[in-house]
């Protein structure tokens, strides 16, 4: 555990009836963007709630900039900008009223920053929160999260339910802000294309466990999808197989070492560079069996 990390989770567990988060460990270095991906119900939101101390962990350790998220709760939360997957503000109050009341809770709240973001996001400050579209609600939540000079942004499925045009605009806004200010970000999503532009690290959650946590470029450069028939794939080392899917025209196998797989597979097999979506589908999809 060092101060080089914005966020560190070590052996974190949480048990609910019918679902358990088991021994979750990963970290986000300072100044980097980490995408937390996984299918619905994998445990992404639970991980985020644990970091925010909205739910109590059963075991493990969570540190934000080296501080324990429970013992130093106030100091930790003053450094986090948080956007929840369904932002809960007061439906019958205007954005202006909520900004005026909630902003001062943060020691480094900056009205000028908020006004700049509100103008950039075209927020209707005199409207009641409940009257806004989901996209505008998200923009308001993002403006609030970004206006107190937070060092770590935690965004839980901020693009879920947004139309593609707005999603692109949202990500562009976010990307621009991150580039300008060098924040650390944990961004949970099940829409993997969201991460293609902005994520430095990718952490994959599956059935309450961390399947991997890697730099995105390492993942996409070294992993591969091997396509071929069963005979062609027979020689591939099972230790590098991370997922598998049978299709109409053969078998697709996700491997964590594309070069080794290319050497050992039969001549009819083809190795392709995977997308994040391929990785998620093959690791989480029906019939997968990770190594």
């Amino acid at each position, binding site marked *: 555990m060092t101060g080089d990390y914005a966020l560190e989770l070590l052996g974190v567990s949480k048990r609910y009836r019918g679902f358990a988060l088991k021994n979750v460990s990963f970290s986000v270095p300072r100044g980097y963007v980490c995408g937390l991906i996984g299918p619905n119900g994998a445990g992404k939101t639970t991980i985020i709630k644990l970091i925010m101390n*909205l*739910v*109590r962990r059963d075991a493990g350790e969570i540190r934000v900039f080296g501080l324990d998220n429970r013992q130093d*709760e106030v100091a930790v*939360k003053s450094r986090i900008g*948080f956007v929840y997957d369904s932002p*809960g503000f007061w*439906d019958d109050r205007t954005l202006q009223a909520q900004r005026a009341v909630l902003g001062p809770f943060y020691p480094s709240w900056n009205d000028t920053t908020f006004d700049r973001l509100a103008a950039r996001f075209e927020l209707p400050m005199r409207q009641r929160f409940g009257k806004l579209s989901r996209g505008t609600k998200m923009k308001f939540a993002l403006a609030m999260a970004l206006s107190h000079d937070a060092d770590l942004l935690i965004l839980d499925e901020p693009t879920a339910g947004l139309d593609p045009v707005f999603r692109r605009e949202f990500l562009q806004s976010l990307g621009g802000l991150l580039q300008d200010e060098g924040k650390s970000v944990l961004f949970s999503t099940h829409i993997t294309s969201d991460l293609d532009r902005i994520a430095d690290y990718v952490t994959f959650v599956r059935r309450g466990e961390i399947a991997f946590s890697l730099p995105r470029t390492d993942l996409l450069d070294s992993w591969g999808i091997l396509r071929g028939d069963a005979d062609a794939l027979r020689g591939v080392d099972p230790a590098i197989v991370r997922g598998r899917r049978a299709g109409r025209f053969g078998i697709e196998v996700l491997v964590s070492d594309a070069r080794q797989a290319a050497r050992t597979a039969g001549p009819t097999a083809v190795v392709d560079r995977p997308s994040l979506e391929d990785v998620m589908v093959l690791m989480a999809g029906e019939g997968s069996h990770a190594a």
Partner: protein
Amino acid sequence: MLRKLFVKDLQLNPHLFWGVLPFFAWIGYAVREDGAPVGMLTTVSALMGAATASTVAAREDRFHATALLASLPVARTTLVLSRYALAAAAGGAAFVTAALLAALLPWSPHPMSAIFDARSVLMAVVFVGASTALLLPLALRFGLVGVVGFFAVLQVGGVGLFFLSSAFGLREPMRAVFGGVEFLLKNLYASLSAPGFAVLVLAAVAGAGWLSYRASVWLVARRDL
């Protein structure tokens, strides 16, 4: 931090506080008569004021704003403390408003000394303390469901008591229940003139409030949002 939490509650829930104005208007009208139950009116006002703390918590739960609040850089114990402080402040403010109306309105025949007497104030403190101690832990732990559930249990309990009384052949069971409550309250009011008893009651209310606060802190700390 408590001041910021107060401002938040006042500014994000203004209609809860303005909503009691018609009641105060009615008090202004009711106190014109010599026999108006001023003590009861001020106590009910204090109760209504104190109940806003639970209503504020229930509203936050309804708008799913509880998680947002818990994500602010505020300790959960401070959040809980602010609810108790709000109940006390709003209850006190409502009591004073009702009492001032009764004392200062030109058509009110009630003298200031009769309204602000120690026993009336103590009765209000007992009611506010007891209701807050009962209701707030439920509102903070279970939100809107807790508040509604509390009154539902009271209602079901009342109906149950009615049937139970009928089953035992008691005539006019509701009158018996309300008569019993009235008897208790009258006795409590009369006994509060004894300083020793008043101190004992105040200590009991303070103890109940402290236990309720500790229970709320414990419940809120264990609430998964």
